[in-house]
């Protein structure tokens, strides 16, 4: 009985999570007449790839995809490099007046106000730097946005790691940075991967800043590009869905390929030797 309830709950959760995805996939494959049919056609429709062709050949969704990929990858990388080093310092070094704790909290506090508060100042800054409509502006903003998250995640992973290991490396003759690179970092790889996945997802899906900072096809990312198909005269459901299906893929593939790290990273403590 208990098992039955458990499976029922799982099925319910899956239903809630996957129905929209299923609906999006079918819409991307339906002709427009089928999209608006009442009652809705769940299974029986004649599939077509015309929306995919429309999105990626006739329109610039290919470019958006590229932009999204570049922005997400570059901002994740930057946030990981800067954030990991900062987190290591915060986890290992005691500053006077407990500044290390205060600093960590202050870093976290930058995530406490709503993102939109910074939209206007960031727009003005980017305009003055002539960075509007560039991927670089988004890379900078996303890096800043992801940093607190990286610092806090990685700080936890570093704190879990016994100090003995680094101290052994130091006494064995390695430098601080060498010990970090050869001993510490390999041991927090699962945590690093889990953090990277979260950063990627956030950057990949981000809409607000992308909308404010990029208007041109050359710089626009997928979420903005997709939303842009809702126009005054028509809503291109097929094109939007086709782009949505493609947008889903990279993160899905990445998450699946690093699954073994992800599980260990999420269940902290997987780094103990």
């Amino acid at each position, binding site marked *: 009985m208990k098992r039955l309830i458990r499976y029922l709950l799982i099925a319910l959760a899956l239903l809630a999570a996957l129905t929209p995805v299923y609906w999006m996939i079918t819409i991307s494959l339906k002709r427009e007449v089928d999209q608006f049919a009442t009652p809705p056609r769940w299974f029986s429709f004649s599939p077509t790839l015309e929306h995919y062709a429309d999105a990626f050949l006739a329109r610039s969704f290919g470019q958006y995809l590229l932009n999204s990929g570049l922005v997400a990858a570059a901002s994740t990388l930057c946030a990981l490099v800067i954030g990991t080093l900062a987190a290591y310092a915060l986890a290992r070094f005691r500053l006077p007046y407990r500044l290390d704790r205060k600093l960590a909290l202050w870093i976290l506090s930058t995530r406490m106000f709503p993102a939109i508060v910074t939209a206007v100042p960031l727009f003005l800054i980017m305009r003055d730097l002539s960075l509007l409509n560039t991927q670089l502006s988004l890379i900078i903003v996303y890096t800043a946005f992801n940093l607190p998250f990286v610092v806090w995640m990685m700080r936890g992973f570093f704190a879990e790691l016994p100090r*003995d290991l680094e101290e*052994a*490396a*130091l*006494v*064995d003759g390695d*430098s601080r940075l060498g010990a970090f690179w050869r001993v510490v970092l390999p041991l927090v790889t699962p945590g690093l991967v889990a953090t990277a996945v979260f950063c990627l997802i956030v950057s990949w899906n981000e809409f607000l800043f992308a909308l404010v900072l990029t208007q041109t096809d050359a710089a626009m990312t997928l979420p903005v590009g997709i939303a842009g198909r809702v126009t005054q005269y028509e809503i291109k459901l097929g094109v939007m869905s086709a782009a949505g299906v493609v947008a889903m893929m990279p993160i899905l593939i990445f998450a699946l390929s690093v699954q073994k790290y992800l599980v260990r990273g999420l269940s902290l403590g997987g780094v103990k*030797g």
Partner: protein
Amino acid sequence: MSIILKNLTKSFGSALVVDNLSLEINSGEFVVLLGPSGCGKTTTLRMLAGLEEAGSGDILIDGERVNELPPQRRDVAMVFQSYALYPHMTVADNIGYPLRVRKLNRKQITRQVVQTAAMLEIEALLQRKPRELSGGERQRVALARAIVRSPRAFLMDEPLSNLDARLRVQMRGELKHLQHELGTTTVYVTHDQAEAMTLGHRVAVMNKGKLQQFETPLDIYNRPANRFVAEFVGSPGMNFFDGRIDAIRAVFEGDGISLAVQNGLELYRGRTKPVTLGIRPEHVQVSTRQRDNYLAARVYVTELMGSETFVFLQIGQRRIIARAPGDFRAEPESTVWIQLDPTKTHFFDPESGKRL
């Protein structure tokens, strides 16, 4: 390589952890820092390694002041209580790590790793990861990693405390042999007095950050500098009686016993101040039959050790321990007769605890 500590002091916040510690360790010597937890022995070792900053005082290795040198430039090797093996590396990579960071070429590293592994009989494990090893094997790998680069000194922080009792005794012997073979100056931290007695050329007993005594194990055992050392070294520890010496009759009296004083009586001549008498369990004779000059005592409990029996005795308010032969038997609450060997007594000042 000699190691000299001069007036070394260290405090964490307001807590004084190491208090004005001075030690001179000769080249090739095996010195044990012995003391209860929190006595500052591990902190001392970490200051030697460079992992902890020295508060004040000097640390000299081979005549060179190393206070400001970071650990990687002190050329000492450390064995941690947790072994601190790198979990993501194979045994071979673990042992070779100190060589790799010194940029030796691959061939040389392999040769030295294999050689060291052979010395510790772990050649078969070289391709394994630390988590696939037993405690004793991990211990050997940690030792191999320390030995491989022939450092100026070995620093060991309770390296045997994570092993089971049988293995600990075995590794203790191997460690002593190894140090003898290599002749490398070794500083070894432990709270286990048996390890200290068996391993050290000299033992530095510490308590509350202060050095209590620094001598050979036998001297420490036979002539403890104060009551703390007498109690801490030896298993079971020394028995104590509080009383006075009557110099005219040459008798110690107190705590329900009276004992003719024989050794070093001149020290107490004319003395009426209270003293503490100490006597080791093996110098307390126990008999189930009444004899001349024996005192009556009540058996509290006996502990069979096989080769010997520890007899816990109640004399007035005092509880003492006697070491009896393995075949000694007595029921709790029964009366036995004891004699304290008057030539084996120690006297301490009850106030300062110092040996008289």
